[in-house]
């Protein structure tokens, strides 16, 4: 199977994630969309690793996973605490810092 097809899949996933980030208001969904984008890029990285025949891409994919895990921990904690105080997970409602 042509490895380039994996790249098409990665682009598709990335686009879905990006559209989700732009369109959805729910913080959890937003978060999942960000994860989707991260995974799309992981897939692209691994594919490139295969194409070029070296391990650089796979190493970077591991980094991304670690960062994504850390981000999920912090991000979910923030979302949960916002939900507790404001009873809403919508990102548009959090506008205290807005001028």
């Amino acid at each position, binding site marked *: 199977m042509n490895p380039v097809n994996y790249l098409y899949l990665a682009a598709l996933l990335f686009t879905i994630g990006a559209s989700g*980030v*732009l369109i959805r208001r729910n913080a959890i969904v937003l978060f999942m969309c960000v994860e989707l984008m991260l995974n799309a890029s992981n897939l692209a990285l691994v594919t490139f690793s295969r194409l070029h025949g070296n391990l650089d891409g796979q190493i970077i994919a591991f980094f991304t996973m670690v960062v994504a895990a850390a981000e999920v921990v912090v991000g979910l904690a923030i979302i949960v605490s916002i939900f507790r105080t404001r009873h809403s997970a919508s*990102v548009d409602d959090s506008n205290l810092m807005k001028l």
Partner: protein
Amino acid sequence: MNSLIPLLVAAPLAGAALLLLGGRALDRFGHWLGTLAAALSFVFGLVLFFSMLGRSTDQRPVHVQLFSWVPVNGFQADVAFQLDQLSITFVLLITGVGTLIHLYSVGYMAHDERRRRFFGYLNLFLAAMLLLVLADNYLLLYVGWEGVGLASYLLIGFWQHKPSAATAAKKAFLVNRVGDVGLSIAIMLMFTDFGNFTYLGVFGAAGQASRSQLTAIGLMLLLAACGKSAQVPLQSWLGDAMEGPTPVSALIHAATMVTAGVYLITRSHAIFDLAPDAQTAVVCVGAVTLLFGAIVGCAKDDIKKALAGSTMSQIGYMILAAGLGPIGYVFAIMHLVTHGFFKAGLFLGAGSVMHGMDDEVNMRHYGGLRKYMPITFVTFGLGYLAIIGFPGLSGFFSKDKIIEAAFAKGGTEGWILGLVTLVGAAVTAFYMTRVMILTFFGEKRWQADDEGHQPHPHESPSTMTLPMIVLAFGSVFAGGLFAFNSSFLKWLEPITGHSEGNSPLSSLTVTLLTSACLLVGVALAYVVYGRSPVPVTPPVGSVLTRAARRDLLQDEFNHAVLVRPGSALAAALVYLDSKGLDGFVNGLAAAIGGISSRLRRVQNGYVRSYALSMFGGTLVLVATTLLMRSV
């Protein structure tokens, strides 16, 4: 002996300082303190005069250096005095008449609660005027020049609660300031031409300067003289200056300060002698003013304003004489001194009349006062005879000489000037006779004021009549004394120089012509005012009369040419400054603020839109990179 010279100035200056700073403690005897200061200065003047008389002619001028005033590289101004025949003449006139008027004011201002301050200002005036005539350089003269202007400002506006007095004071100062610009520029010209502005230095170097330079200096000095001496075109302040108390009008606006212009021109004779064009200008100014003042004097019903017109006209005579050059200098000064006597006497007489008539100034409300105020009538009458040039009295000798000098100028110019001065003499006789008839002769015409008070004309107290009597003596005898053996001529000639000129008419012819003019003037006035009762409300009169009542429209002219455009310009600039210059800056600020508040909207607080802009930005970056690579 010379150490007395600074004391001449110091005595009244100390008096002024004491009176103005002393506070209420001095209220009881302050006026006598002021009079004493003036008298002291007069005594110093007399001592110096007699010591000068005792010296030979070339030893007479003395010079006293006090201290270095403004020492800057290349610019040396000193406080130094020069006492010569010319300045001692002025010193005696100023302090003599000054002392008399101080004495008069003791009575005249007796009921004024601010009398102490009045005497303080009078002393300040004396100090400044003495500084003016004693200075040995133009810059120090300038100090005295503006100092008398200040004293005049303070005294014209002495009754400050009257808006008209405050306005008149400001007007006098402002018009004088225009003249002062002339003096400033003259000094600057001297400095750039000669590097010096002492009399000695400038007159010594004047011979090397070009004629155009000297003409420029001369014209600027003339401008200064016009301001101070109320000559056309800067004459408009003198009439209004009569708002001041009458002793002030006598001392400052008749006898001394207004003659400073004549002093300035005579003092600067070394410059004018070498600048014939400037001299012509001086003569023209003098001739025009002499007629201007006389015409105005004919129409005024206010006794002080009529006398003010007369002052203007008489100073016109002096300026004209000074413009004639060496033929006229001595006679200009001689007329100045005799005029000082009789005009001061006339003003004091007018003040005495006003004092008795509850400050009424309108001559149409006088009449027949000779019976009620005999001393005033006699002294005023002698002054009147002196000013019209009645043979044998002071004015006759001095004015006659000026008319003679005008003819002696020679050529067409001489004829024109001679005729102008003759016409002036006739008009003088006319308006002075009018004043005399309206005030002292005819039926009594005074009326009760609004509250029903009938004036009770009465003779003034002796502090007031005594100075009038002394001045009347001066009006009668001073001229004869000066003319006797040409003593005045011989006294001043070493300073101003003198030449006889070549008159087409003999001295006797001129005297006869003058006397004829005098007779015509008096007769005419008698015909108009003496034979029939004078109406209390003035008749409408001819166009000329109506114009003359309004000072030949001088204020209308100044208003249209200077005041209105000036205030319009100021208003326009105020608008431009806030809307134009400031508006530009504020507009810039507003523009920046507007742009910022637009840009602020981009930060709307929605994560989505930030993310969109990030995506957009990334896309643009990638696209550019790809495009650049393909190119």
